[in-house]
């Protein structure tokens, strides 16, 4: 049994209950026991969090832990430590591992590994199709029963509309959300970045925004047709936001996520960095018009949550010619600080909104426990220090991946304390308290 822990004197921001005010939070037996003013329970360890912000634990719906198969890029141990250091108490692990997580055996093995190595909660995502080949459906019943919380062929978009239709239909039986990386491959063949004036100047092959939006439109239509639940991964274009917005307006069960890099950077970063492969990911950084539309989608509720698409790679996979480099950036250790500095401090989102986008709302998208500090919820808590200033230094990442386009950025605000099941798994409290 975990000890009783009292978080004292903090500002509690819990959008799931519309709460924003000074409260104490008592965690006991792995759950939230009480949230109230000036609690004085007997026998609890007390942590002074005055001046800090206490939030429901943050949940990342889109993480690549790389284990099994690519332990040189990341492991459950390193990936979940990166999550904890970044303020996340739970991560959803994408199934594009080797082997692909398309079976209960692989799911169980991952959960077994998580029990021994993970410091935050790991929720497996199962494959939509066997081997993520886009042909035959994986066994959703088994996947659900063994612990999968959603389905995705991430990185290998489901090319066939027929297969996507069947997946959305069949997943209904197990109440699983189908997550799609939306990309029409014939339009994005061999692309390394967004297609537009910047790719023209750089002479790099580009993928037009339409390559994504076409599939977003298709998926919204198919979710409408089947009554299934579709979640659009890392949405990045204005047309995609528009498709989701229209779908929601007519009652289609569609949700969407956006990543910090798509919210904060544009394809100009590829040029300004002189072809730095840390700016290469899929979907690519888009133009500013798209970026602003994604921010607007986040503000108006079209986009349900912020997810990292944490995609660690080895130095060798990235220190090559731009068009040869692997796609992806790490995100777990930068996402929260970036959002606090560039979205909240910048006045784009208020703090409660950001907390909702990282906790309550992602929990709701996949129907996960947590995302709330209501009594009886899991004792998963993220504590933020809004005043801390840190430079993003990849050398200090817990992740094996160093591939970030944000190196050297100085960010105000970040996670100070990460608590999972009532246990402190990461602590970076301001000076005097240490």
């Amino acid at each position, binding site marked *: 049994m975990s000890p009783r822990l009292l978080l004292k004197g903090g500002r509690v921001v819990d959008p799931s209950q519309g709460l924003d005010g000074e409260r104490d939070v008592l965690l006991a037996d792995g759950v939230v026991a009480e949230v109230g003013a000036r609690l004085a329970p007997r026998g609890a360890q007390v942590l002074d969090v005055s001046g800090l912000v206490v939030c429901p634990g943050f949940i990342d719906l889109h993480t690549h832990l790389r284990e099994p198969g690519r332990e040189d890029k990341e492991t459950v141990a390193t990936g979940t430590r990166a999550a904890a250091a970044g303020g996340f108490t739970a991560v959803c692990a994408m199934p594009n591992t080797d082997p692909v997580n398309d079976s209960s055996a692989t799911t169980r093995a991952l959960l077994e590994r998580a029990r021994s190595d993970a410091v935050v909660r790991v929720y497996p995502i199962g494959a939509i199709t066997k081997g993520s080949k886009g042909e035959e459906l994986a066994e959703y019943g088994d996947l659900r029963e063994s612990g999968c919380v959603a389905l995705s062929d991430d990185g290998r978009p489901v090319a066939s509309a027929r297969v996507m239709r069947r997946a959305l239909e069949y997943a209904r039986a197990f109440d699983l959300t189908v997550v799609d990386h939306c990309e029409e491959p014939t339009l994005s063949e061999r692309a390394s970045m967004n*297609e*537009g*004036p*910047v*790719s*023209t*100047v*750089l*002479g*790099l*092959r*580009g993928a*037009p925004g339409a390559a994504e939006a076409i599939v977003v439109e298709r998926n919204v239509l198919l979710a409408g047709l089947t009554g299934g639940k579709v979640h659009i991964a890392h949405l990045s274009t204005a047309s995609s936001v528009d498709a989701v917005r229209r779908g929601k307006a007519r009652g289609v069960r569609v949700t969407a996520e956006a990543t910090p890099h798509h919210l904060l950077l544009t394809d100009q970063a590829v040029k300004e960095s*002189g*072809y730095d492969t840390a700016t290469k990911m899929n979907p690519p950084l888009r133009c500013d018009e798209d970026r602003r539309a994604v921010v607007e989608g986040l503000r108006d509720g079209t986009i349900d949550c912020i997810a990292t698409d944490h995609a660690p790679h080895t130095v*060798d996979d990235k*220190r*090559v*010619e*731009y*068009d*040869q480099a692997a796609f992806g950036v790490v995100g777990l250790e930068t996402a929260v600080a970036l959002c606090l500095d560039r979205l909240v401090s910048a006045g784009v989102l208020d703090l409660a909104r950001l907390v909702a986008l990282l906790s309550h709302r992602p929990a709701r998208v996949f129907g996960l426990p947590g995302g709330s500090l209501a009594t009886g919820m899991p004792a998963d808590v993220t504590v933020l220090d809004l005043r801390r200033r840190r430079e993003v230094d990849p050398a200090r990442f817990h992740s094996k991946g160093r591939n970030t386009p944000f190196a050297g950025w100085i960010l105000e605000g970040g996670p100070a304390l990460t608590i999972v099941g009532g246990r402190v798994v990461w602590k970076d409290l301001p000076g005097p308290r240490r």
Partner: protein
Amino acid sequence: MSAYPHRHLLGIEPLEPAHIQAILDTADGLREVLDRPIKKVPTLRGKTVVNLFYEPSTRTRSSFEVAQKVLSADSLSIAAAASSVQKGETLLDTVKNLEAMNPDMVVIRHASSGAPHFLARHCRSAIVNAGDGAHEHPTQALLDALTLRQKKGRLKGLRVAIVGDILHSRVARSNVWLLSKMGAEVVLCAPPTLMPPGIEALAPVTYRIEEALEGADAIMMLRIQTERMTGAYFPSTREFHVRFGLTEERVRRARRDVLILHPGPMNRGVEIASEVADGPASVILDQVTNGVLVRMAVLYLLLGGGEAA
């Protein structure tokens, strides 16, 4: 400040007009060296240059080699097919190995856009871009400009039509930057499938070759690469020639003293008719001589800069 303040030549885009002017003036100043009975000066004696060619090239590579010999630099040419690249060595490892030889300059031709920038980040030598993917081919644009200036006496105010596969062409990009920086009026012509998105921001675009050629002082033809001919960019080479090819009849829309340039190698009967390629307006062979001169100028400015020639 020196006439050419950069350490590398990665592209035309980052250059100021004064830097371009400096390279062209230096090239003109070196012209007499090629007319001497003994075509060799000791300017770059003791300097080492590596020519690293990851793509086949006859013209550009031999032009750099001649320029290096004339200036007495020690040079070494590595063709990808003959090096460890075939054994799967990464660009970084190749560069680190080359660097152990401590060259003063690396001239690189590579199919990946940005490869010269990668080298500039990872090694100490001066880097010269000899063509990277569809990004830039700065010395080609410089030799084209030198040719135009030699024949027309100026660049400012010239009307230049660039015709052909703009989408995949690094030559087109470098020329658009250079000519517009130097005050020439550029018009681009290609079928819409071979026009890169957003290029209109850099130069006006037309899909009608007749319109592009109207009143042109110079026509730059771009090669249609064989692999594109079957890549669904256009229905057939026959239709391409009929609609977008440079024929004698079309040349008549340009000024009487029009110059015709082609970076080579040409596809006769596709983008250019033989009568035009071999006709009196063609300066395709002058381009070759001027190619040696601009490369000498670039070598000199990057390696010998500041000292007297």
